Protein backbone atom coordinates (compact mmCIF):
# COMPACT_ATOMS: atom_id res chain seq x y z
CA UNK A 1 0.00 0.00 0.00
CA UNK A 2 1.30 3.50 -0.78
CA UNK A 3 -0.04 6.96 -0.14
CA UNK A 4 -0.57 10.27 -1.91
CA UNK A 5 0.93 12.76 0.52
CA UNK A 6 0.90 16.02 -1.46
CA UNK A 7 -0.35 17.32 -4.79
CA UNK A 8 -0.33 20.44 -6.90
CA UNK A 9 -2.60 21.69 -9.68
CA UNK A 10 -1.74 24.31 -12.27
CA UNK A 11 -4.22 25.45 -14.85
CA UNK A 12 -4.58 28.56 -17.03
CA UNK A 13 -5.84 30.66 -14.15
CA UNK A 14 -4.78 29.27 -10.80
CA UNK A 15 -2.31 27.27 -8.78
CA UNK A 16 -3.44 25.01 -5.93
CA UNK A 17 -1.44 22.95 -3.48
CA UNK A 18 -3.27 20.16 -1.66
CA UNK A 19 -6.54 21.67 -2.84
CA UNK A 20 -5.84 25.19 -1.56
CA UNK A 21 -5.35 28.04 -4.02
CA UNK A 22 -2.00 29.75 -3.52
CA UNK A 23 -1.93 32.02 -6.58
CA UNK A 24 -4.11 33.18 -9.43
CA UNK A 25 -3.10 34.66 -12.76
CA UNK A 26 -2.93 38.43 -13.08
CA UNK A 27 -4.59 39.08 -16.42
CA UNK A 28 -3.22 42.66 -16.45
CA UNK A 29 0.39 41.52 -16.22
CA UNK A 30 2.61 41.57 -19.31
CA UNK A 31 4.32 38.41 -18.10
CA UNK A 32 3.07 34.94 -18.86
CA UNK A 33 1.44 32.92 -16.09
CA UNK A 34 4.44 30.65 -15.37
CA UNK A 35 6.76 33.64 -14.99
CA UNK A 36 4.22 35.32 -12.73
CA UNK A 37 4.20 32.21 -10.53
CA UNK A 38 8.00 31.95 -10.50
CA UNK A 39 8.30 35.52 -9.24
CA UNK A 40 5.32 35.57 -6.87
CA UNK A 41 6.46 32.38 -5.15
CA UNK A 42 9.99 33.79 -4.72
CA UNK A 43 11.83 31.04 -6.53
CA UNK A 44 15.49 31.70 -7.28
CA UNK A 45 16.76 29.52 -10.10
CA UNK A 46 17.95 31.55 -13.11
CA UNK A 47 17.96 28.46 -15.32
CA UNK A 48 14.15 28.68 -15.17
CA UNK A 49 14.17 31.33 -17.88
CA UNK A 50 15.90 29.02 -20.33
CA UNK A 51 13.38 26.20 -19.82
CA UNK A 52 10.42 25.45 -22.04
CA UNK A 53 6.84 25.52 -20.68
CA UNK A 54 6.86 21.80 -19.74
CA UNK A 55 10.01 22.17 -17.69
CA UNK A 56 8.92 25.46 -16.14
CA UNK A 57 5.60 23.96 -15.04
CA UNK A 58 7.31 20.80 -13.78
CA UNK A 59 9.86 22.87 -11.87
CA UNK A 60 7.26 25.11 -10.22
CA UNK A 61 4.88 22.29 -9.27
CA UNK A 62 7.65 20.04 -7.93
CA UNK A 63 9.13 22.91 -5.88
CA UNK A 64 5.70 23.65 -4.42
CA UNK A 65 5.32 19.99 -3.46
CA UNK A 66 8.75 20.12 -1.81
CA UNK A 67 7.58 23.15 0.19
CA UNK A 68 4.47 21.22 1.26
CA UNK A 69 6.68 18.25 2.19
CA UNK A 70 9.83 19.90 3.58
CA UNK A 71 11.43 16.60 4.56
CA UNK A 72 11.06 15.07 1.11
CA UNK A 73 14.64 15.63 0.06
CA UNK A 74 16.20 14.61 3.37
CA UNK A 75 13.95 11.60 4.02
CA UNK A 76 15.19 9.60 1.05
CA UNK A 77 18.48 8.55 -0.48
CA UNK A 78 19.11 10.16 -3.85
CA UNK A 79 18.25 7.02 -5.80
CA UNK A 80 15.06 6.22 -3.92
CA UNK A 81 12.81 8.89 -5.38
CA UNK A 82 11.44 7.94 -8.80
CA UNK A 83 9.84 10.29 -11.34
CA UNK A 84 6.77 9.17 -13.31
CA UNK A 85 5.30 11.76 -15.66
CA UNK A 86 3.07 11.81 -18.70
CA UNK A 87 0.94 13.91 -21.02
CA UNK A 88 -1.03 13.78 -24.22
CA UNK A 89 0.81 16.50 -26.17
CA UNK A 90 4.43 15.33 -25.78
CA UNK A 91 6.66 18.38 -26.34
CA UNK A 92 4.51 19.88 -29.11
CA UNK A 93 4.90 23.48 -27.85
CA UNK A 94 8.70 23.27 -28.08
CA UNK A 95 8.53 21.28 -31.32
CA UNK A 96 6.58 24.08 -32.98
CA UNK A 97 8.90 26.79 -31.64
CA UNK A 98 11.95 24.88 -32.84
CA UNK A 99 10.43 24.35 -36.27
CA UNK A 100 9.73 28.10 -36.49
CA UNK A 101 13.32 28.89 -35.52
CA UNK A 102 14.66 27.30 -38.68
CA UNK A 103 11.71 27.84 -41.01
CA UNK A 104 11.01 31.48 -40.25
CA UNK A 105 14.16 32.77 -38.59
CA UNK A 106 16.65 30.88 -40.73
CA UNK A 107 18.70 29.33 -37.95
CA UNK A 108 17.75 26.34 -35.79
CA UNK A 109 18.02 27.21 -32.10
CA UNK A 110 20.03 24.78 -29.94
CA UNK A 111 18.33 26.14 -26.82
CA UNK A 112 14.92 25.21 -28.25
CA UNK A 113 16.11 21.93 -29.73
CA UNK A 114 17.10 20.50 -26.33
CA UNK A 115 13.47 20.71 -25.21
CA UNK A 116 12.00 18.83 -28.18
CA UNK A 117 11.57 15.70 -26.06
CA UNK A 118 9.01 15.68 -23.22
CA UNK A 119 11.19 13.75 -20.78
CA UNK A 120 13.69 16.62 -20.51
CA UNK A 121 11.54 17.98 -17.65
CA UNK A 122 12.53 14.88 -15.66
CA UNK A 123 16.18 15.72 -16.26
CA UNK A 124 15.64 19.29 -15.08
CA UNK A 125 13.98 18.11 -11.84
CA UNK A 126 16.58 15.39 -11.28
CA UNK A 127 19.52 17.74 -11.87
CA UNK A 128 18.11 20.39 -9.53
CA UNK A 129 17.45 17.90 -6.72
CA UNK A 130 20.33 15.49 -7.43
CA UNK A 131 17.90 12.58 -7.71
CA UNK A 132 19.35 9.55 -9.42
CA UNK A 133 16.37 7.21 -9.23
CA UNK A 134 14.20 5.67 -11.91
CA UNK A 135 12.28 7.92 -14.25
CA UNK A 136 9.76 7.51 -17.03
CA UNK A 137 7.77 9.85 -19.24
CA UNK A 138 4.81 8.46 -21.18
CA UNK A 139 2.55 9.94 -23.81
CA UNK A 140 -1.04 8.78 -23.37
CA UNK A 141 -4.32 9.91 -24.96
CA UNK A 142 -5.51 11.21 -21.57
CA UNK A 143 -4.72 11.11 -17.87
CA UNK A 144 -5.14 7.48 -16.82
CA UNK A 145 -5.23 6.86 -13.08
CA UNK A 146 -4.84 3.09 -13.46
CA UNK A 147 -1.59 3.53 -15.34
CA UNK A 148 -0.09 5.69 -12.57
CA UNK A 149 -1.28 3.36 -9.80
CA UNK A 150 0.19 0.33 -11.55
CA UNK A 151 3.50 1.90 -12.53
CA UNK A 152 4.04 3.43 -9.09
CA UNK A 153 3.80 -0.10 -7.72
CA UNK A 154 6.33 -1.29 -10.29
CA UNK A 155 8.79 1.42 -9.23
CA UNK A 156 8.24 0.64 -5.55
CA UNK A 157 8.68 -3.10 -6.12
CA UNK A 158 11.97 -2.29 -7.84
CA UNK A 159 13.26 -0.35 -4.84
CA UNK A 160 11.90 3.21 -4.95
CA UNK A 161 10.51 4.53 -1.68
CA UNK A 162 8.74 7.55 -3.17
CA UNK A 163 7.49 8.49 -6.61
CA UNK A 164 6.88 12.03 -7.78
CA UNK A 165 4.19 11.71 -10.44
CA UNK A 166 2.95 14.28 -12.86
CA UNK A 167 0.57 14.96 -15.72
CA UNK A 168 1.80 17.91 -17.78
CA UNK A 169 -1.07 18.66 -20.16
CA UNK A 170 0.45 21.72 -21.81
CA UNK A 171 -0.18 22.98 -25.30
CA UNK A 172 -0.02 26.50 -26.72
CA UNK A 173 -3.60 27.15 -25.57
CA UNK A 174 -4.09 25.25 -22.38
CA UNK A 175 -2.44 24.16 -19.19
CA UNK A 176 -3.67 21.24 -17.11
CA UNK A 177 -0.87 20.26 -14.78
CA UNK A 178 -1.25 17.87 -11.89
CA UNK A 179 1.68 16.64 -9.82
CA UNK A 180 1.36 14.32 -6.86
CA UNK A 181 3.79 12.70 -4.48
CA UNK A 182 3.40 9.06 -3.53
CA UNK A 183 5.26 7.64 -0.57
CA UNK A 184 5.59 4.06 0.59
CA UNK A 185 5.41 5.23 4.19
CA UNK A 186 2.88 8.00 4.36
CA UNK A 187 -0.03 6.91 6.42
CA UNK A 188 -1.10 10.54 6.90
CA UNK A 189 -1.84 10.73 3.19
CA UNK A 190 -4.58 9.29 1.01
CA UNK A 191 -4.26 5.69 -0.11
CA UNK A 192 -3.12 5.43 -3.71
CA UNK A 193 -6.03 3.93 -5.61
CA UNK A 194 -7.36 4.76 -9.05
CA UNK A 195 -10.55 6.08 -7.49
CA UNK A 196 -8.76 8.41 -5.06
CA UNK A 197 -6.37 9.58 -7.75
CA UNK A 198 -9.16 10.41 -10.19
CA UNK A 199 -10.95 12.30 -7.44
CA UNK A 200 -8.07 14.59 -6.61
CA UNK A 201 -6.88 14.90 -10.21
CA UNK A 202 -10.21 16.46 -11.12
CA UNK A 203 -9.86 15.94 -14.87
Amino acid sequence: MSFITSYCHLDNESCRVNGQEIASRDSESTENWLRQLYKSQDFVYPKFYKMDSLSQAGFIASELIKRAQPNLVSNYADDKIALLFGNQYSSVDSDIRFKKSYQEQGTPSPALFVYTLPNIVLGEIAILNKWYGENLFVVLPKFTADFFVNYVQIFISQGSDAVLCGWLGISSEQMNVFLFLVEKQGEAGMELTAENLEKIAGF
Partner: protein
Amino acid sequence: MDNLKEELKNQIIEQLNLEDIKAADIADDALLFNDQGLGLDSIDALELIVLLEKYYGIQVTNPDEGKEAFLSINTMADYIIKRKG
Protein backbone atom coordinates in the same frame (compact mmCIF):
# COMPACT_ATOMS: atom_id res chain seq x y z
CA MET B 1 34.81 48.75 -30.91
CA ASP B 2 32.76 49.93 -27.92
CA ASN B 3 29.61 49.94 -30.04
CA LEU B 4 30.34 46.39 -31.14
CA LYS B 5 30.79 45.23 -27.53
CA GLU B 6 27.55 46.90 -26.46
CA GLU B 7 25.75 45.34 -29.40
CA LEU B 8 27.20 41.92 -28.55
CA LYS B 9 26.04 42.15 -24.95
CA ASN B 10 22.48 42.97 -25.99
CA GLN B 11 22.44 40.21 -28.58
CA ILE B 12 23.73 37.69 -26.03
CA ILE B 13 21.12 38.75 -23.48
CA GLU B 14 18.34 38.32 -26.01
CA GLN B 15 19.57 35.15 -27.72
CA LEU B 16 20.35 33.36 -24.45
CA ASN B 17 17.28 34.54 -22.52
CA LEU B 18 19.39 36.09 -19.76
CA GLU B 19 16.52 37.47 -17.74
CA ASP B 20 17.15 40.40 -15.38
CA ILE B 21 20.60 41.04 -16.84
CA LYS B 22 21.37 44.30 -18.60
CA ALA B 23 24.30 45.12 -20.86
CA ALA B 24 25.79 47.27 -18.09
CA ASP B 25 25.93 44.18 -15.84
CA ILE B 26 28.33 42.38 -18.20
CA ALA B 27 31.96 43.47 -17.83
CA ASP B 28 33.97 43.39 -21.06
CA ASP B 29 36.49 41.01 -19.50
CA ALA B 30 34.05 38.84 -17.49
CA LEU B 31 34.59 35.15 -18.24
CA LEU B 32 31.44 34.09 -20.06
CA PHE B 33 31.57 30.39 -19.05
CA ASN B 34 32.75 30.85 -15.51
CA ASP B 35 30.34 30.74 -12.55
CA GLN B 36 31.81 34.00 -11.30
CA GLY B 37 31.25 35.47 -14.76
CA LEU B 38 28.08 34.86 -16.76
CA GLY B 39 27.89 31.14 -15.95
CA LEU B 40 27.00 30.07 -19.49
CA ASP B 41 26.76 26.37 -20.36
CA SER B 42 27.36 24.18 -23.40
CA ILE B 43 23.98 24.93 -24.97
CA ASP B 44 24.74 28.63 -24.61
CA ALA B 45 28.02 27.98 -26.45
CA LEU B 46 26.03 26.56 -29.37
CA GLU B 47 23.74 29.58 -29.28
CA LEU B 48 26.78 31.88 -29.45
CA ILE B 49 27.91 30.06 -32.59
CA VAL B 50 24.42 30.62 -34.05
CA LEU B 51 24.57 34.27 -32.96
CA LEU B 52 27.87 34.88 -34.80
CA GLU B 53 26.44 33.47 -37.98
CA LYS B 54 23.07 35.19 -37.65
CA TYR B 55 24.32 38.70 -36.86
CA TYR B 56 27.85 38.75 -38.34
CA GLY B 57 27.85 36.11 -41.04
CA ILE B 58 30.74 34.31 -39.32
CA GLN B 59 30.88 30.50 -39.27
CA VAL B 60 32.92 29.00 -36.46
CA THR B 61 34.23 25.76 -37.94
CA ASN B 62 37.30 25.19 -35.76
CA PRO B 63 36.31 24.24 -32.18
CA ASP B 64 39.65 25.45 -30.77
CA GLU B 65 39.09 28.83 -32.40
CA GLY B 66 35.65 29.03 -30.82
CA LYS B 67 37.02 28.17 -27.40
CA GLU B 68 39.39 31.13 -27.53
CA ALA B 69 36.85 33.48 -29.07
CA PHE B 70 34.14 32.87 -26.48
CA LEU B 71 36.19 33.60 -23.37
CA SER B 72 34.78 37.09 -22.88
CA ILE B 73 33.09 39.99 -24.65
CA ASN B 74 36.57 41.38 -25.40
CA THR B 75 37.72 38.19 -27.12
CA MET B 76 34.44 37.86 -29.02
CA ALA B 77 34.73 41.43 -30.34
CA ASP B 78 38.38 40.85 -31.31
CA TYR B 79 37.38 37.64 -33.11
CA ILE B 80 34.61 39.34 -35.05
CA ILE B 81 36.91 42.15 -36.18
CA LYS B 82 39.63 39.68 -37.17
CA ARG B 83 37.22 37.49 -39.16
CA LYS B 84 35.48 40.34 -40.91
CA GLY B 85 38.82 41.90 -41.91
